[in-house]
């Protein structure tokens, strides 16, 4: 219609879920010493969940945690949907950026998986469980939350896009891993993921139609909540990735655009903060600090940090001439996507390795966040 026609390069910018750290930093800012530590929700709510969980004060007993399972599915779907809504098209193709983020993902998966597999095998975990858990840990390590709180920082868009694309890649790879678990055949896995896409598109389209045709705020909110519950519920029912179902629906909404997409985004953002807090609390409460987990946490955090720093160099060279060499430092904070992925795996994979994986992810996220705080570039604040 206008000169502003859209072309077809798919990129990411710091969409709502990916701005999580930035925005929550504002919410939890306390000022004074230790501010940067408290700025990060994972640093606040994961330990809080651990303290309140069944192995702590038992304010969140097992019965309550299982009662909250539907909310976890919905929260995961909402997080995925917001990541999908962050996808957009730009007239400029930037294959270099996409390629370098893919390289970053590969590097991170490789570094973390190999290290995890070595340690887990040494602790006597069965080979198959070791393989799956290690790859899943590597996938969870890809996600990072942009470590720039100031949205007008000149590097914020690049870091946001790298983080966003990384999160989307992590969600897609995670869905493939979850689909592979019960089938263990590439064709069956791909077919299953295709079916999930189709179901997510159907539910997403229904939600989009409904959000577009009502002007009542309450009804819009119900339709948004209902759609997210359907997405999360479908994933839960099929033992699939709720994050991926959400991502697929969010990408559909992004493509459809219009007022309905704006409303859905607004309502999801309204729901997002409580749901993220809930996710972190529940993940913390489900975490069990065991020797097996501790053995891997330090290695996980260090491998991930090293991989991200290396990725930063690669991305700086390939996709961002003139950008800082220290780009990797901005990609260090893991955010909540990794923990969410861990919860997703724990919900659908009945192997004891899944619980161990969640433990590692929770503790590893805490440690990685602390490392990110310690290494935060001065100008990032």
């Amino acid at each position, binding site marked *: 219609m206008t000169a502003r026609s859209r072309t077809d390069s798919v990129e990411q*910018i710091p969409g709502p879920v990916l701005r999580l750290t930035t925005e929550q930093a504002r919410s939890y800012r306390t000022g004074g010493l230790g501010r940067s530590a408290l700025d990060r929700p994972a640093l606040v709510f994961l330990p809080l969940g651990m303290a309140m969980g069944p192995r702590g004060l038992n304010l969140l007993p097992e019965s309550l945690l299982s009662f909250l399972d*539907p909310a976890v599915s919905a929260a995961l779907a909402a997080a995925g949907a917001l990541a999908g809504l962050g996808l957009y098209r730009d007239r400029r193709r930037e294959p270099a950026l996409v390629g370098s983020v893919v390289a970053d993902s590969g590097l991170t998966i490789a570094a973390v998986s190999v290290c995890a597999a070595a340690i887990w095998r040494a602790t006597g975990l069965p080979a198959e469980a070791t393989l799956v858990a290690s790859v899943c840990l590597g996938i969870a390590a890809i996600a990072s939350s942009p470590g720039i709180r100031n949205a007008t920082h000149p590097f914020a868009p690049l870091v946001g896009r790298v983080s966003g694309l990384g999160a989307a890649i992590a969600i897609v790879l995670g869905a493939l891993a979850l689909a592979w678990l019960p089938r263990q055949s590439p064709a069956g896995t791909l077919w299953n993921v295709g079916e999930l896409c189709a179901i997510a598109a159907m539910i997403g389209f*229904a939600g989009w139609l409904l959000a577009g045709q009502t002007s009542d705020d309450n009804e819009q909110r119900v339709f948004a*909540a209902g759609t997210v519950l359907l997405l999360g519920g479908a994933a839960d029912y099929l033992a699939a990735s709720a994050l991926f179902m959400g991502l697929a629906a969010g990408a559909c909404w992004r493509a459809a655009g219009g007022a309905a997409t704006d409303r859905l985004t607004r309502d999801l953002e309204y729901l997002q903060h409580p749901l993220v807090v809930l996710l972190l609390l529940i993940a913390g409460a489900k975490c069990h600090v065991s020797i097996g987990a501790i053995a891997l946490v330090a290695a996980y955090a260090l491998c991930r940090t090293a991989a991200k720093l290396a990725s930063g160099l690669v991305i700086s060279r390939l996709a961002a001439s003139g950008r800082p060499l220290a780009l990797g430092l901005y990609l260090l904070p893991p955010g909540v996507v990794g923990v969410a992925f861990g919860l997703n795996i724990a919900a659908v994979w009945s192997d004891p390795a899944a619980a161990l994986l969640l433990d590692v992810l929770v503790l590893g996220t805490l440690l990685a966040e602390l490392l990110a705080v310690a290494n935060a570039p001065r100008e990032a604040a």
Partner: protein
Amino acid sequence: VTRLASVVLVVAALFWVRRLGAAGAATDHSGTALALGFTLVVALISGDVLRRFRLPKLTGYLLFGLLLGPYLGNVITEAMARQLQTVTGVATTLIAFIAGLTLNFERLGRRARGIAQVIATTMTIAMAGLFAVAWLVWPWLPIAPEAQGVAKLAIVALFVVVVVSFSPTMTAAVIAETGARGRMSDLVLAIVVVADLVVLVLFSLLMQLGRVTLGESPAETSVLARLAWEIGGALSFGSLVGALLALFLRYVARETTLVLLGACVLLSQVGATQRFEPLLAAMAAGMVISNIAVPQGDALKVAIQRGALPVLIVFFVAVGTSLQFHVLAEMGAMALALVLLRIGWISLGVAAGLRVSGIDRRVGAYAWTGLISQAGITLGLAAVLAVEFPTWGGRIQMLLVALIAIDELVGPALFRIGLARSGELEAQLQRPLVVVSNREPYIHSYDGDGGIGVAHATGGVAVALDALMRERQGVWIAHGGGDADAAVVDASDKVAVPPGAPSYQLRRLWLDRAQYDGYYGGFSNEGLWPLCHLVDVRPQFRTENWAAYQAVNSCFAAAIDDELRTDDTPVFIQDYHLALVAQRLRERRPSARTALFWHIPWPYPDRLRICPWRRELLEGLLANDLLAFQLERDRRNFVLAVDEELDADIDAGGQTIRYGSRTTVVTSVPIGVDYDRIQVVGRDPRLAGEQARLLTDFGLQAPLLGLGVDRLDYTKGIPERLDALDRLFTQRPDLRGRLTFVQIGVPSRSALGSYNAIECEIDRKVAEVNARHGAPGLAPPVHYHKSALDLASLVALYRLAHFCIVSSLHDGMNLVAKEFVAARDDEDGVLVLSGLAGAAQELRDALIINPYDIDDFAQALVRAVDMPREERRARMAAMRRIVAGRNVFSWASDILEGLESLWTKPLQYAAHAPEETPV
């Protein structure tokens, strides 16, 4: 059709998921979220369908649960229904919480004694009547026909107590869903809450009697202690939770939704494990907040209102899925007879209670309709009977399940009818409305051929109020300014509008030229307008203009008085031209209900002192029941002015002001644009043609376009804008020929000297910029179009523009900024916005400038031109969410509902809900 298509998609997806799940890893516990999502989406649509048949939405949710539940359709399977039931504990607690929040002792006040008498009389008559009937027909009832003497007495008494029990949850849910407020709602809620406490106590005592006389179960000596624990413990625990929640709301007030949900989970879980009555505990928590921490209660009500609908849907669908259809089929006839008897005796009891208590019959005439529903408590008591007295208790349980099934279906529908007949439904908000403004929405003018044409006002506010009037009907009173206006009105100066589909009356007021000039051009626009805007134009106050202003305001008041059929018709007055209307109206109608929205800024007290008649203005405005400003800053300035100028009582938060014998609520409600209409215009296929036409007509060849759309007013900062553009082209000569700035200027109030001067200045500056930076063969730096454009053309231009400048020196809101954002569904374009415009308070992702700092302004323009696509998209997306969430209709309804709530729900109206942290 859209909704139907959506339902089909959702159902198809559900079946697909179930088919895949059946083949795969689905477990019994994995369907909860799916059932909840399906329930929310499809039940809401079902409720809406029933609403069209004038039945309550709740009945739709119930029927949805019944028809698709495990006993009939089995779309919601038994496992899913079971999972759904687990959520209802929290839902029930939240509903009880809402009920507690509505029970305010101050409101019940003197009526408490009367309410107690109604309860006592109703329960006595209903129980006595049902007892007598049951005693007489006992041999034919399939319960325990063989029982005689004391045993019969005990069984009949227990049976009657359970039959009479009510459902506070259902009653509260109907009230919450319909939004009903008023004395009957309060009365019914109080009756069901207290009566069920009485039922619980009676039931416990009778159980003791039963245990002793029937000997089927050992007597429990600690029954009173247990009862005291259940009731007292629930009240104490609930009060504690309520007090903690109030403290949280007062000192933290973040994540209210999450904390509220947590409180409900706590009340429900601890209640169940500690044998507290969770319903009572939740109600006590709500009552503590509502009665002790009133401001926190108001804030919580606003938060709850946002989340109540999904909770109600889930609760009623869960109830529907649990209705056992086969029992109803088996014992339906007998249960129906019992329902009729119960209704008869209860209504008789309520009527007698009203007579005894002296409560106005008009208040309580339909109170019985709220006492029909039965649910959880009745079911629970029946279950206790079945467990303790298996021989006859089981038969009573069967009969009661059938009774509950009928009462659940009939009760909400009857209660809704009762609320409607008592005038306490939200529908009362649909009463005709009186809107009063200086400018009229439709102007009739003679065309060149002597015919009469009609033009529709195109401003966002006029369009929104017109849409509101089409829906609400009533009268719009305005000055008749068109040259053919007088030719089309009837004998009472009214004409039905909109033309072609009349739905309300436009009452025109005729003002003579001198009077109009003094009121509009003089006092309003030479005095108040510059007084309220911080610009370098001196306000001029003349005695003759003040006299004209008072006279015209009195004329408007007289016209309103003519048109008001009843005192409770809401009157919505617009803007600074009509500050004295409410006061003049009150001289004629002391009980009229008026709200005034002040569209422009309100000056700080030092500046207000320029006005010789400031006290009269303040007194005039305080004659309104509700006074609304655009921004919190304006509201604060007004309260400060009242504090300095008048001897008024101002509450701690500055929300209510008591002056003389009147109380005025003062609030801020930022105005929005008609977002949906702009989306429709934006998607019109003809828009591309309009864009092409504008490009051709305006001769726009530059690849970059900037845009400014303004009334030609000295507050809009247009000269400053042109200076900044001059600086931009000087700093960035590469933009010459590549950038054209389109300035749309709509002349207004040109007869006033200050306006004439600004028009001349703009003409001169445009010429200077074009002379300095233009060159033959290059696109001109500035294209100046000096007339109004319709919305379609504006949207076309908004979508062509790379950036839009709003550089007001001071502005109440500025809707151009919001229109630009609303028009950009491509999420492109940069808004350069003055920090001195009200819109800057909301649109923080715009490039905020200070129009007085030309260098900074020019730098912002450089940034707008060079801004990367991704940053433009992120900023625009964030602004669009804000603009979409606050449209002009929600602005109007916020004010009108605020006005209504002053009578129907005095504590319900909270000007400022606690902010949810946006993430």
